[in-house]
């Protein structure tokens, strides 16, 4: 299938997306029907609807696509994916575009990449994420002001024992880190 896609399609970006997404070859079947953009809870906030993005991928507009905010609006609710009449794994394509955007340093005007980095950074170090600790830490580094607004919420959570500020470390953290290290080597990702 991928072979056909590669033969039939000139867009190198399209081939890249197909390669990088499990089941991504379905993208060539897009009808431009828009059931994705219509279904998306964040549709109204997207620079381009997913459908538009697929058309742009098809015409090799790599930079425009990777620097758009579309995939960062994705909350992976999978509504588009279950509704797509051509069974295109849209959510997974969004994940793929997020990865590429981060790799290319094109992820702009969204906190999501930074959030993701903070999150996985913690995970790598402790083996667990520590809930709002994450949020507070994230806001501390990224938007101190928002942290103040978070204040009362954080407090109420804290008083109900729903917020820990001390990260918890798993016993086998070295093991986990070894696995992650290996994954980075094998995957060649940053």
């Amino acid at each position, binding site marked *: 299938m991928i072979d056909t896609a590669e033969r039939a399609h000139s867009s190198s970006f399209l081939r890249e997306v197909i390669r990088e997404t499990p089941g991504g070859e379905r993208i060539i*079947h897009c*009808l*431009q*029907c*828009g*059931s*994705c*953009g*219509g*279904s*998306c809870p964040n*549709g*109204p906030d997207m620079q*381009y*609807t997913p*459908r*538009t993005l697929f058309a742009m991928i098809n015409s090799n507009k790599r930079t425009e696509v990777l620097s758009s905010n579309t995939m960062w609006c994705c909350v992976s609710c999978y*509504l588009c994916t279950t*509704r797509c*009449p*051509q*069974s295109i794994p849209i959510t997974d394509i969004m994940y793929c575009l997020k990865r590429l955007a981060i790799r290319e340093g094109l992820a702009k005007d969204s906190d999501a990449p930074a959030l993701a980095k903070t999150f996985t950074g913690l995970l790598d170090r402790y083996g667990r994420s520590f809930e709002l600790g994450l949020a507070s830490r994230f806001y501390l580094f990224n938007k101190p002001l928002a942290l103040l607004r978070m204040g009362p919420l954080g407090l109420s959570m804290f008083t109900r024992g729903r917020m820990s500020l001390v990260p918890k470390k798993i016993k086998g953290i070295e093991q986990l880190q070894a696995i992650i290290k290996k994954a980075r080597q094998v995957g060649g990702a940053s």
Partner: protein
Amino acid sequence: MARKIGIYVCHCGSNIAGTIDVEEVARWAGATIDGVAVARDYKFMCSSLGQQMIEEDIRKKGLTGVVVAACSPHLHEKTFRRACEHAELNPYLCQMVNLREHCSWVCADKAAGTAKAKALVYAAAERVKQQVPLEPMEVQVNPATLVVGGGIAGLQATLELADAGYHVYLVEREPSIGGHMAQFDKTFPTLDCSACILTPKMSEAGQHANVTLLTYSELEEVSGSVGNFKVKVRKKARYVDETICTGCGICIEKCPRRVVDNGFEAGLGQRKAIYTPFPQAVPRIPVIDTAACIWFDRGKCRACEKLCPTNAIAFDQEDEIVELQVGNIVLATGWKLFDCHKLPQYGYGRLPNVYTNMEFERLCNAAGPTNGKIVLRDGKTEPKSVAVIHCVGSRDVRHNESCSAVCCMAALKFGHLVLEKTKAEVYSFYIDMRTYHKGYEEFFQRLLKEGMHFVRGKVAEVTDAARTPGEEGKLIVQVEDTLVGQQQRIAVDMVVLMGALEPQADAKELGLKCGISCSMQGWYTERHPKLDPVATMTDGVFVAGACQGPKDIPASVVQGAAAAARISGMIAKGHVMIEPIVASIQEDKCSGCKICNTMCPYNAIEFDEPAGVSRVISSMCKGCGTCVAACPAGAISGAHFNNAQIMAEIRGILWDAVPSGNGQAPGVPAAALNP
């Protein structure tokens, strides 16, 4: 006797000569292949000059076999067989080599092409030496025809044949003929009333001297083959004696039990327990719905029986099997509507004012449950806005991958009806507007002028979850307007889902009974999608209308008429020739293991108990050869494709290969290897 083979290599202009050294192939064949009396190449073998050349050689040189290395046998096998016939050589002693489609056109390199060509020619030469004269079988054609399905396609076929003076048995599953078209209000693009153009045809079929109507009946069993089919039809018990009933309708009037009519009225209207689907039904003989009838339920009532002026009610009636003999069969079994519950995001079944296309047809129909008034489920409120959603279950790999072909035009028709009958705004939500026949695009332009709104986008969901006060109490259609690239929410009062056309649930089963196959989806497979769209791979079985694929009324009528024309031709001729490519069993070799009996999908092999051997009924054999390959005793031989011929072809096609060991394969009957 000494073999004298003629080999004729065609240039096909440069089509073949371009990538194959044809002169070399001819020269080589003459020099290398044993038994070749003459080998020539020629610019266009299929030209009359080329054919004459072959005919002369056959006469002058007394050829015993001819190999034409040219194009696909599907293109010119008939041509060259005819040429051989002219020269009194049995046409089955002519073998074609597909140099063009299978070699010159697909080979990039001339050397490789030429080498492949030689192998193919060698194979054909070896094969033709094994071929034997065969005679096509002549079968008389029974002039009576069976038409299955009383929709517009079946009706058309029936009337064409009946008018041509031939008898037709028209079998219809429902109590009345008419099909889906009888449910429609107007027909696109001309907007003439469906009933006005259909009912005359229905009554004509009902009264025609050459037509036997078998309504409320289903095809049970088919045996035999082209020219002479034997058919069993189950006439379901009507509980009304057709010979006595006058169709006065008093029984219906007096029947105390009303039920929702999920058939003809698509669940919008009611009918009695004894009923005819609609007033203009043909025949006008009612049927009793045993599931609803009080007598069948509680053993009381029998009002209809008491009041019937002709005592036609027959509660003791039972299903009856009718046996028919026909020469040809037309399947015109139509389509069924996609179950819109399968797409919960459109709220059908949960949100009352979401309708299917068939419900809306009844809603618009002057003879329908609302007398043609377009109103909400409450039965009185006129909608202020209506949304028509295209491609519901069509162009969707999870349901029906194909386009349903009629929905765009039907949606435009609905739009027109809403604008004509109400003050409502109408929206069409489409993926692509497909208006491809005469007058269709014009109709689209007309709707644009009439003020129907068009939004390009597949609707994501229909919901009653209001986000703004303006949306309160409305149905909100959420969609991406793909021409603007923005998500929109449009609040309406009524939503019409253009559900997909699907194959009948039992299409595959019926196809099997008649020996024809279906596509993956369940549409009947025609013999050739372009050049033979009404015949099927089974001689004498034809298809017409939507059972072969989504189709509108004009296309169904055309196909119905075409099927009739094909059949008239066969009846007029009186007989058909069938290819002699059939299996035969060498009884002294048959061990009576019966494996072949289970192999044959056409039940063309019968077991002779006393003799303990199997026999092939050649008129029923279609020549697939599966039994031949399955016979452990090698007792079955497939005419024109027997082991000796194929083995020879295999050896020939590998003439340039090095055989392993003695070239003997294990497990292969020696007989097969050395004929």
